[in-house]
């Protein structure tokens, strides 16, 4: 009787794991199934002609370029603020364990805040200041949304750096800032790259934070003050259209977005395994 229970649950467990992989395959398959037929040179290189809601011609270049601008900008912003903070946490504050752990805890909490809250707050501030929807607003809001992720991911990479390295550099006379930037960054380079890729993936894929802040447009923005199209919103606005050509743009955008995410995932793995060879083995 013990045997049957064991057999039953073992199969159930295997089934659960297999189910999860199966669902992943199903999702990617269904996206590719509707999206690939919609892909064409025009789709990828033209902006929607006749307006994104009704226009039957053109493609999603506006969203592709817009998303890239947005994601690169916000990731850069998060990096510029986040890297020093993460290094700060792991050098100057190294001794004050309780403080650092509290910061980590709060960052984890912030990571869990839904992006729509960032978007809603961002929108409110924009109204108060009289700002219009723009690329800049999007970069700031998405940058802030992605910041906890960036900091925590770099922090995890830095944490893994054995304490001995920090102590050794201290004794060699490095000042705390020098130590921070030079030694840790080099040792933890793969960790930082992974953090950047992770943040980029989140930044480019999120819709709720850009919904209120970057607006949407048919054109490729030429300045930070203009509204910008993004891939997530391109899908969101065009998916439910009765016009098939418009719907196709949504499907195409879904494929492009999924491919970008898969690429970042693969790159991230490649980086961590390749660079692991260059760091000192402990």
């Amino acid at each position: 009787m013990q045997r049957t229970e064991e057999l039953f649950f073992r199969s159930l467990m295997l089934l659960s794991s297999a189910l999860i992989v199966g669902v992943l395959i199903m999702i990617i398959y269904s996206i590719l199934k509707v999206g690939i037929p919609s892909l064409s040179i025009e789709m990828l290189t033209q902006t929607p002609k006749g307006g994104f809601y009704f226009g039957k011609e053109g493609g999603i270049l506006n969203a592709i370029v817009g998303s890239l601008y947005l994601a690169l900008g916000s990731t850069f912003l998060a990096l510029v603020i986040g890297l020093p903070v993460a290094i700060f946490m792991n050098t100057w504050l190294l001794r004050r364990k309780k403080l650092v752990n509290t910061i980590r805890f709060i960052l984890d909490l912030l990571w869990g805040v839904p992006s729509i809250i960032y978007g809603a707050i961002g929108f409110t501030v924009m109204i108060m200041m009289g700002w219009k929807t723009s690329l800049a607003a999007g970069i700031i809001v998405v940058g802030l949304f992605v910041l906890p992720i960036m900091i925590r991911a770099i922090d995890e990479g830095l944490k893994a750096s054995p304490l001995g390295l920090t102590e050794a550099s201290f004794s060699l006379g490095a000042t705390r800032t020098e130590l921070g930037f030079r030694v840790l960054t080099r040792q933890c380079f793969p960790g930082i790259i992974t953090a950047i890729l992770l943040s980029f993936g989140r930044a480019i894929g999120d819709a709720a934070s850009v919904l209120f802040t970057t607006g949407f447009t048919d054109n490729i923005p030429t300045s930070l003050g203009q509204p910008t199209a993004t891939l997530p919103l391109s899908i969101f606005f065009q998916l439910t259209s009765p016009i098939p050509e418009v719907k196709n743009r949504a499907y195409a955008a879904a494929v492009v977005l999924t491919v970008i995410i898969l690429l970042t995932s693969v790159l991230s793995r490649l980086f961590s395994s390749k660079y692991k060879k260059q760091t000192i083995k402990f």
Partner: protein
Amino acid sequence: MSLWTFVILLSPLIIFAGLMWKSSMLLEDNSIWKLIWSDSWKPLSGEFGFRPFILSSLWVTLISLVVAGPVCILSALHLTYFAHSRFTRIMQPAIDILAGIPSVVYGVWGVIVIVPFISDRLAPLFGAETSGYSILAGGLVLSVMIIPFILNILIEIFNTIPVELQEASLSLGVSRWITVRAVLLRKALPGVVSAMGLGLSRAFGETIAVLMVVGNVTRIPEGIFRPGYPLPALIANNYGEMLSIPLYDSALMMAALILFVIVLLFNLASRFVIIRYENKYR
């Protein structure tokens, strides 16, 4: 650097204060209990009852946990205690990819696969008629989205248990599954519960994917095949109307505040339990 760190430490409070301030206008005329309890949502008449939205959110979240919970527990047990290393090597990237797929893409999958599945196949089995855009659709899509999240936490939880405990039980001549069921699961119970709590907070705040399949009808849902209108969807759909109707912006900020508080509380409580649980073994 230390300035930014300081800001980070205070940020949840800042967000709370900001949302509170913006909701305060609504709270002048209405008590908070009336707002949460009332199911009458007529913005033009100045009536803002949040109950339909809160209930919709609860339903969708509950369904997602009921589906994802057991699957994740079984799969995590499988991967930690029973699977060959070959299997786990496939699973890890699969989990990462699932975690990285953007919300909109899940929404597209929901619209093209889950919604028709419910309207054409599932509902007729129960004698119900539905367009497919329903609480159930939202719950199912959400369940897949929270799987990678919960799974990773559970694997970490199970890995914290020292292998010697497993050895002690096995040495008594107890089979692997019974060891897992009667000893290891018991030991991991607080961790498992918190993993569910974190899953809940993640599910509660998810906006776009659910919005795309849930129907967005302002009514207390009569059943899982009926449409609903979760809290984040309310905010996302109506930000445009915010300024045209008096107190509407305050109401939406109040919705954001309720969302923020619920997500934060579950997040906090769950992480707290996990920290205490992990400290017992380190």
